[in-house]
């Protein structure tokens, strides 16, 4: 039976392409040709952009937008998030009279791909910062950055969602990495608040003191989304700030990874997959008491409350490296489809969803941090225990958002995971440079 399943599933990739294509040429061919009118892709995007900006300027003159039905597709972390988005969109519906259907995707990337290929993507959808380049290059996104006030949002977030010189979409919220400390183990090891590490030397010292028996001082996830913070603290990053050059093979990046490896050799730092028993992620190792500290984002709060309520966690900023503070920043934005016929209404919905009140409602419901400067400041005062997360927004590095980098980073991550088993960081970075250069060249 499985073989038959394999057969049918294995063909899914082709079948879906083909079926999507079939549907297109069959039914939605008309809509796509009317949208593009035989013009090239980019000019089509421009022309639709022009129409909707004119209609949105109509909205500025307080002519109500025509009522439509919008589809919003989200990659939800759970019922709390889905319900919060549904409540927020319902509030907008009540205000405007348009209806909104919220779809919680099981596999957002795949379902979006299907929508883009089929010609009827959802109007509004979550888009991860790391996917911006690919989507923008393929012409899937309606870049409405000029219709929102980009200055309201954290500059680092704006940069994370800028591709090809254009802000593609409004940042939805963000998370940053911080050092999470198990307060009980900390006290037990004779450490006080004065010992909270502010540099690498301090981190090494406390990690060593916290390591004993089956407890490892610091347990972190095994990919660049954690070790990358060390690269950043050493003054490096995978790509240059303007995103035009791959800067993987640099002494700074090497210094960052060597610091991780140095602590691994001392036995004070382990990847979550190298602990015994191995943990699914840093938060699990931390919750189970395998690691006394971990480096995770603000989502760990929800996980700890739910799965490990007894853990007494303290959140502090990551220690600075030789080139100062550095953390990583993760974010989603509200992408709007280039093919959406309701872009004006979609932009209006996004403006509503990114307003301070709505963002704080999301914060309350599922713990994300508001994407606006004002919101981030408000978050820090409302949740002083998690202020360290909010502070990271000022200097956090967003993910690599260039087109074609997804497999490059995946390949690097699979090598990086071997760092604790004697992997050579220099060789990894050389390979990353090579693959990255090829991806940037469009290979």
């Amino acid at each position, binding site marked *: 039976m*499985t073989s038959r399943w394999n057969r049918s599933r294995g063909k899914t990739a*082709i079948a879906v392409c083909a079926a999507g*294509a079939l549907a297109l040429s069959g039914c939605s061919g008309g809509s796509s*040709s009317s949208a593009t009118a035989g013009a090239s892709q980019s000019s089509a995007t421009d022309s639709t952009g022009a129409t909707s900006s004119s209609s949105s300027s109509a909205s500025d003159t307080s002519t109500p937008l025509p009522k439509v039905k919008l589809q919003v597709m989200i990659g939800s972390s759970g019922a709390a998030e889905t319900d919060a988005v549904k409540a927020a969109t319902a509030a907008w519906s009540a205000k405007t009279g348009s209806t909104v259907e919220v779809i919680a995707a099981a596999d957002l990337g795949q379902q979006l791909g*299907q929508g883009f290929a089929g010609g009827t993507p959802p109007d509004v959808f979550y888009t991860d910062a790391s996917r911006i380049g690919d989507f923008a290059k*393929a012409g899937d996104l309606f870049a409405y950055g000029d219709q929102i006030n980009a200055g309201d949002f954290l500059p680092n977030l704006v940069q994370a969602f800028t591709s090809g010189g254009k802000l593609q979409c409004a940042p939805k919220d963000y998370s940053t990495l911080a050092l999470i400390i198990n307060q009980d183990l900390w006290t037990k090891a004779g450490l006080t608040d004065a010992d909270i590490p502010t540099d690498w030397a301090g981190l090494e010292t406390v990690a060593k003191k916290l390591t004993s028996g089956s407890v490892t001082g610091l347990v972190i996830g095994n990919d660049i989304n954690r070790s990358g913070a060390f690269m950043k603290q050493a003054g490096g990053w995978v790509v240059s700030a303007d995103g035009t050059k791959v800067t993987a093979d640099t002494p700074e990046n090497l210094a960052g990874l060597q610091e991780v490896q140095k602590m691994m050799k001392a036995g004070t730092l382990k990847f979550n997959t190298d602990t015994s028993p*191995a943990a699914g992620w840093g938060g699990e190792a931390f919750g189970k008491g395998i690691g006394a500290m971990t480096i995770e984002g603000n989502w760990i709060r929800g996980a700890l409350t739910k799965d490990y309520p007894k853990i007494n966690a303290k959140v502090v900023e990551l220690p600075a490296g030789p080139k100062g503070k550095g953390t990583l920043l993760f974010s989603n934005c509200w992408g709007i489809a280039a093919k959406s016929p309701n872009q004006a209404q979609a932009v209006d919905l996004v403006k509503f969803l990114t307003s301070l009140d709505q963002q704080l409602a999301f914060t309350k419901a599922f713990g994300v941090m508001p994407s606006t400067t004002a919101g981030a400041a408000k978050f820090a005062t409302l949740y002083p225990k998690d202020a360290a997360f909010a502070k990271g927004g000022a200097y956090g590095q967003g993910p690599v958002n260039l087109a074609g980098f997804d497999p490059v980073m995946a390949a690097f991550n699979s090598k990086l995971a*071997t760092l604790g088993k004697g992997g050579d960081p220099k060789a990894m970075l050389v390979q990353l440079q090579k693959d990255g250069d090829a991806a940037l060249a469009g*290979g």
Partner: protein
Amino acid sequence: MAKKKRRNIHGRDGVAGWIFTAPMILILGLFLFVPVLMALYVSMTNWNGNGSPFTGGHAQFVGAKNFTSLFTTEGLTRRNFMQSIGNTFYYVLLVVPLQTATALLLALVVNQKLLKGKGFFRTAFYFPSVTSSIAISTVFLFLFSNTGAVNGLLAKVGITGPQWFSDSRGLLHLVFGWFGMHDSPGWGQTDIFGRTLWDWLSGPSVAMCVIIFLAVWTTTGTFMLLFLAALQDLPVEVDEAASLDGVTRWQKLRLVTIPMLRPVIFLVVTLGVIGTWQVFDQIYVMGKGAPANTTMTPAFLSYSQSFTSLKYGSGAAMAFIVFLIIVVLTAIQRRLMREDRVPRRSRRLVASAPPDQRGPELAVMAPTRAEDK
């Protein structure tokens, strides 16, 4: 005149035949053949998933570039593709023989006349096949987790189980390690399609072994059913005659039963090869290629190349290469299992055996008789 008339009759027969088959030809053509041709066209374009690849200039025709670059262009895509081919090669190499042998064994067991509770065993063995492979994969994730049941059992007998899903070491590399060969020797540095010979010879990783075990466990039931049907279709008189001739059970199995089952074995192996080369859902659930890409398969890579990297042309090209591999392997297998080969060998065996052990001679007759039916 008569000739013409006959032709007319045949002509009308032809029309009737076409009318009767037309619905199926139409359905198959529309939903199978045409989509395959469309996918073939996509594999020769640089379509990025935006708009239709067939109209409006959304995709440019690039000829065979997507295919050739998988073999000739040095880079990440080729490296991943070649690794996925290597992984799946070992997967097929282990799964197909194991599942065929186990299925045959189980079929023989539940086909015994003396076995009690036959219905129960048949159902039990078939059960994994009718369960959703996603559900089974999830259960396996728990079984083989580091603190799971499997490692728990191993610990009871004093073995520290490996970290199944994060262990990327290849089985053959582990075996080489026992003989003191821990790192790639000089000859292992030979580069074949961007991977060293040493990497090609890694064998399936520990994580892949879990998936191999899972695949054998789930598919065996289906193939057991095929074998069981074939076993029950075998002529009883041949069996009895063999018994009368005084063959041992092993001889009867080797020289009477298995040769008669050859068409079914061919079917099972063919289905096995096709199914295993296209393995996707288990990979999707159990780690998406992790650890270190050692569970990456071409089907999954084709998917991620299309839907994540938005390179649908290259993804479709991978799928067609797998299609070609399957066709070639099936052709080879057809040659190896050709009807006339095995009987000739048995004939030689029989001729060389002492006269009092000639019972199995019947085996030579068996296939012909099975066919006559």
